[in-house]
């Protein structure tokens, strides 16, 4: 890996404030990102993608959908998860990460999966970091859900960097005696890495500590 994203304190504060504003906006409507996404859905079906064509954001370079499986597997408290893809050129969408959501619409964890699970090209970590840079303060997202997703990706960029490192380490670990491309097709390897998410702690850590730093 040749690159790493390090957010400045100012950038982190910006994304934290943006996330807090989004949460307050959702709070006033008594909703959350997933409930908002499913607002017009009469019957939520397992294995179906919501929305079917995916949500585009960050200059149409990122795309996501939400779905539920019949059997919970990513996290014991999971309701469903977002799969988040990025356009690496020529309309080739590579899977970047998944985001598990609990039954009350709260994020539980980021995760990566093996290549065969999502199909499409394998996303190298360098390319992933480059794609993250398209999520900027200047993106004018149209809706709450895409704004929320883009903000989480930006706010958790260092966590996602670690997530990718762990993913690649696991692939290397299982590639003794075979190529990594073969390991990426190994049906026994499903989830490759996880990183827990706790929005309240994240906001408290950065917003309250930053305030304290200024005052102190």
């Amino acid at each position, binding site marked *: 890996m040749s690159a790493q994203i390090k957010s400045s304190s100012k950038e982190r504060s910006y994304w934290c404030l943006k996330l807090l504003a989004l949460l307050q906006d959702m*709070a006033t409507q008594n909703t959350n990102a997933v409930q908002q996404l499913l607002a017009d859905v009469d019957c939520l079906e397992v294995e179906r993608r919501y929305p079917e064509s995916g949500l585009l954001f960050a200059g149409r370079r990122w795309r996501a959908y939400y779905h539920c499986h019949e059997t919970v597997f990513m996290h014991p408290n999971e309701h469903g998860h977002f799969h988040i893809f990025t356009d690496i050129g020529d309309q080739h969408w590579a899977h970047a990460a998944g985001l598990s959501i609990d039954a009350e*619409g709260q994020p539980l964890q980021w995760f990566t999966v093996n290549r065969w699970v*999502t199909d499409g090209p394998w996303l190298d970590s360098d390319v992933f970091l480059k794609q993250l840079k398209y999520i900027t303060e200047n993106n004018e997202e149209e809706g709450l859900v895409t704004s929320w997703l883009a903000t989480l990706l930006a706010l958790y960029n260092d966590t996602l960097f670690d997530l990718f490192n762990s993913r690649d380490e696991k692939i290397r670990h299982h590639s003794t005696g075979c190529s990594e491309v073969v390991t990426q097709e190994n049906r026994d390897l499903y989830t490759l890495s996880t990183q827990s998410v706790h929005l309240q702690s994240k*906001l408290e850590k950065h917003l*309250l500590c930053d*305030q304290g730093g200024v005052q102190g």
Partner: protein
Amino acid sequence: MKSKQARIIVGTAISAAVIAVAVDHTRQRLPDPEKQLASQQAVIIIDEGEEMPAENNGDCGKPTTLGRQASPCSL
């Protein structure tokens, strides 16, 4: 978005309580997912003597070496 963000944040002292209230009020019960509706299930016609297709319900919750040919979470 930016003006709305400024409107909400400015003038609000950010405290642990403000953050907790915002997060708590987004805790809204999601609908329980249901199995695929019968009316929307695909009908597969098997000709006499033709081999039955392997079951693939898209469930990626049970890691197994069997029946793992599809990509259950593709775009």
